[in-house]
């Protein structure tokens, strides 16, 4: 306990410098902005901004990027409530009841419920992160290569099981990502694999190139191929922010449930904001309605508070596997790995001991960022709404430009621009074929790590494959992966899962 306080005070000392506060603020503002704008997600934004963080000190860069991630959750909920347009996938469920509340003139309480829920959950998530970091890091030091390999298998399986859509296709996308990760020079033998004698390819396919092409350009093309959505602006004045006493009574348990659920789901591989908010809404829907309470889907405040709390808690705790084990649980965290490597920080258990300021500073900055978001968001609602009325045809050339500039400035090399163009076409193809691209990015990041750990464990075991099941921790992790797969493949769950992702 004393340790926790010491660590947090170290962190707040780092986070409370003028420079880091400024970058936290910039990150939060940018995050809210992209959360508000539909058609621009956190993955694309973080990838676009990575090169811009070269010049910053590592801690400032990570603080800003983290701010973008959780800021996006706040922004996404604002537009979900006011205009029924979830800016972020994790706010889809918030729109169900939030927009109904806004239509009944209760936009204020809905926004407040989302804000309060998010802030409370964010604070708890930060504490969970701080408390779990030390013990989990100790566990991580007991891990050998076999355990790491099994953990990555579990992580990748978890990522597809919890995602939406076809399971087989998601697994295939992961394998494809792992294969893309093989391009470039093999560290053990020095052989340049799949490089076709192109010198730029011996460094491997940059994940910025793939992220921008597949997520950035792919998304723009898809957005443009649809007719522009009519945006029903709820311009009724947002008056009376404060929820009533009855609202508070209804939303408090919902926030607590959402927070607990989000904090635990966030830690799971493949978890994070999206899954947490869906699960929280489903659970609220299952609880019995009190007399006089509005049914879900007609403006029940619990339907706003719980998923908002859950998605924010989940986005905080999804940093745990990244910071303690060095394994990214979702696509955004995969980009954070990239950000850390750009600044010569190897993500993993050693970060806490070798860079304590960075580690605790980042954690503390998340709490500060959440506070900023609550304070900023409510008064700025009007500004965000104005932004929504900017038509997409004004916005997309700027997005194309930021992608192109971001890609070019990573290596100052036009070769990356050509490959990004290629992956833009590939990204559009994925969308057309109904293949979710996020697992690909995860595979791309994990590919080289997985191969390295596989090789090392097989070397240590002298070619005996049973090493993965005879070492207890490794066996446990693999068993968990198998159980996950079996659960999803069992007919009843499979049906439920399809329903859940269609219905909500």
């Amino acid at each position, binding site marked *: 306990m004393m340790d926790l306080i010491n660590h947090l005070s170290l962190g707040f000392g780092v986070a409370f410098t003028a420079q880091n506060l400024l970058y936290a603020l910039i990150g939060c503002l940018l995050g809210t902005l992209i959360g508000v704008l539909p058609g621009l997600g956190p993955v694309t934004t973080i990838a676009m901004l990575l090169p811009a963080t070269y010049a910053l000190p590592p801690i400032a860069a990570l603080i800003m990027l983290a701010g973008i991630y959780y800021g996006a959750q706040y922004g996404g909920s604002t537009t979900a409530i006011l205009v029924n347009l979830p800016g972020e996938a994790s706010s889809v469920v918030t729109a169900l009841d939030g927009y109904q509340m806004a239509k009944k003139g209760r936009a204020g309480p809905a926004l407040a419920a989302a804000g309060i829920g998010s802030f409370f959950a964010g604070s708890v998530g930060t504490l969970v992160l701080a408390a779990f970091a030390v013990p989990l890091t100790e566990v991580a030091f007991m891990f050998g290569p076999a355990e790491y390999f099994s953990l990555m298998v579990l992580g990748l399986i978890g990522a597809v099981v919890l995602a939406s859509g076809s399971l087989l296709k998601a697994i295939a996308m992961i394998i494809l990502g*792992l294969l893309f990760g093989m391009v470039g020079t093999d560290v053990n033998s020095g052989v340049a694999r799949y490089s076709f004698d192109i010198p730029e390819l011996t460094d491997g396919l940059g994940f910025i190139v793939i992220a921008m092409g597949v997520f950035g350009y792919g998304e723009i093309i898809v957005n443009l191929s649809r007719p522009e959505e009519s945006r029903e602006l709820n311009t009724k004045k947002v008056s009376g922010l404060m929820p009533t006493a009855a609202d508070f009574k209804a939303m408090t348990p919902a926030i607590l449930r959402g927070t607990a659920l989000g904090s635990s789901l966030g830690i799971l591989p493949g978890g994070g904001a999206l899954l947490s908010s869906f699960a929280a809404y489903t659970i609220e829907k299952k609880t019995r309605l009190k007399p006089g309470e509005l049914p879900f889907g007609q403006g029940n405040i619990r339907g706003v508070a719980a998923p908002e709390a859950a998605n924010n808690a989940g986005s905080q705790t999804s940093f745990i596997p990244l910071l303690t084990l060095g394994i990214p649980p979702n696509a955004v965290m995969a980009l954070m790995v990239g950000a850390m490597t750009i600044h010569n920080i190897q993500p993993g258990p050693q970060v806490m001991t070798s860079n304590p300021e960075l580690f605790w500073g980042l954690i503390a900055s998340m709490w500060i960022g959440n506070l900023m978001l609550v304070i900023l968001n409510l008064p700025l609602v009007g500004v965000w709404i104005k932004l929504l009325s900017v038509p997409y045809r004004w916005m997309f050339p700027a997005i194309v430009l930021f992608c192109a500039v971001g890609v070019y400035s990573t290596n100052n090399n036009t070769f990356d621009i050509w490959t990004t163009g290629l992956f833009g076409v590939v990204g559009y193809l994925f969308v057309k074929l109904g293949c979710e691209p996020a697992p690909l990015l995860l595979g791309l990041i994990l590919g080289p790590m997985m191969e390295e750990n596989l090789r090392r464990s097989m070397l240590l075991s002298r070619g005996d494959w049973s090493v993965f099941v005879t070492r207890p921790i490794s066996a446990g992790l693999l068993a968990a992966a198998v159980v996950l797969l079996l659960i999803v493949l069992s007919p009843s769950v499979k049906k439920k899962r399809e329903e859940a992702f269609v219905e909500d």
Partner: protein
Amino acid sequence: MAIKSQQNLVAGLMFSVTGAAFALGAREYDMGTAGRMGPGYFPLVLGVILAVLGILIAFQSFGSQRRESEDIGDIAWRPLCFIIGANLIFGLLLGGLPSVGIPAMGLIVAIVGLTFVAMLASEFCIKRAVILSAILAVGSYFVFVKMLGLTFQVWPWFVGA
């Protein structure tokens, strides 16, 4: 047998072909043994798994009930060509192509080129394109070059450095 899901059929074929290509490519590299894996080992295994998964996915696409939601549908050629084209023109103008003797025109020209080509992807309006490219060029110059200090060739090659 009828095709239930066009998406799955094509996706399955795509995965199979890609997996097979990676697996065949891996044979060029040393396999090694399980205890001492060469650079070809892991990619070969992955390539084979991907090819098998692709076949399974393709088989799933057969069935009597056609799912309309899984039709591939029309390809949006216009945004596809112009967005990717905007990206390529940006690279071409920014860095040139020394191998075929195209000189570098620098960042400002590249931004204007990108904006005009990108705007062709949706309804084109010359006035809007001019305004937007001016805003983007000036904005990028200040943000990327002045504030963030990214290194770009800003002006064309004939404007003295």
